[in-house]
């Protein structure tokens, strides 16, 4: 290929060089190789606490841990917290674009009480809310080398309907992230 350049005119060579430069500049954000795999682990459950319910109850745990609700009486010592996930990745460029996919969450019925989760919120930059089954992108602006590790939290709303029976509700919260680009 380099040898064929000898037969190009100076104008043709200039055109080819400009095209190459244009291609290089357009590659400002591309999928990248990872020295270490993209890893995500969960470090804390989304915990709605312990409480008694009469009829219908709603409890929302925010991504910042704020708890609101109605129709329930919390037991003293009840602990509430947002879920916490840690993503680790070896970035070559400081800005990482990731795609987050949130799996579906089915309702659960225990002892006549049906629990349903919705209204999921996160503390990810530019991604305050996400729905089950939805894929969204978000940006990690300061992914430091050699290993970039960041933590994000997920809150949600639990709605309980039904009788006054007790039980422990455990909902799986399947999340996946994929690398889209480094910038």
């Amino acid at each position, binding site marked *: 290929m380099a040898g064929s350049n000898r037969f190009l005119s100076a104008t043709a060579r*200039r055109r080819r060089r400009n095209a190459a*430069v244009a291609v290089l*500049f357009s590659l400002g954000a591309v999928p990248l190789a990872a020295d270490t795999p993209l890893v995500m682990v969960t470090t804390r459950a989304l915990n*709605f606490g312990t*409480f008694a319910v009469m009829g219908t109850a709603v409890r929302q745990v925010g991504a910042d841990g704020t708890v609101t609700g109605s129709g329930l009486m919390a037991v003293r010592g009840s602990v509430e917290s947002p879920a916490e996930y840690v993503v680790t990745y070896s970035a070559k*460029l400081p800005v990482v674009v990731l795609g987050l996919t949130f799996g579906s969450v089915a309702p659960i019925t225990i002892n006549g009480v049906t629990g349903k989760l919705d209204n999921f919120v996160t503390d990810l930059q530019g991604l305050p809310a996400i729905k089950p089954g939805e894929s969204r992108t978000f940006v990690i602006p300061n992914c430091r080398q050699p290993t970039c590790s960041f933590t994000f939290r997920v809150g949600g709303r639990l709605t309980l309907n039904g009788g006054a029976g*007790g039980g422990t509700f*455990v909902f799986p919260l399947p999340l996946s992230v*994929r690398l889209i680009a480094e910038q």
Partner: protein
Amino acid sequence: MAGLRLCAFAIAGLAASVPADAASAEPASATGVARATVVTPLSAEAIDDLDFGMVAVSGASGRVVIAPMAGSAGFEGAAGPGCGNETGCPGAHPARFAVTGEAGRGYTVTVPASLRIPSPEGAVPLLVDQIVVKTMSRPAAGSQGALDSSGHDRFEVGGTLHLTATQPSARYRGDVPVIVTYF
């Protein structure tokens, strides 16, 4: 020379964008959980009222003490039993409650420190103070108890009734609010 400059520029451009290799950046998944513990609501059923029985006061003030889990009333000062073993004479006893809820869970009983029982003839209301609670499961733990493996327990409420020398003869009756909550 122009070819050399293009080559150097291309290398610099590639270093800034890093070659794409999507296959090595596998998506990462993590399944967290959302958890909520719903406890069976507590219920407290009144079995017997707090009853100070028939009391006689002779010329001075006196007190009647009903201790929970004790069995009989104590009389102090000018107060004494108003009847012996006559049939139909109301006996003194503490209030008795049955509690039902989540097996093995602790609960606490809240009662007022004192209260006034209105006099039916507009006289000075009767004072009941030193209202105390004792649970069957934890008699030494004051107002705290624990439900057994089937979710049951009992507690009693006693108090001290203060009588003046001029207390009108009447049947006095008042309400003692009792709040039972999990802890």
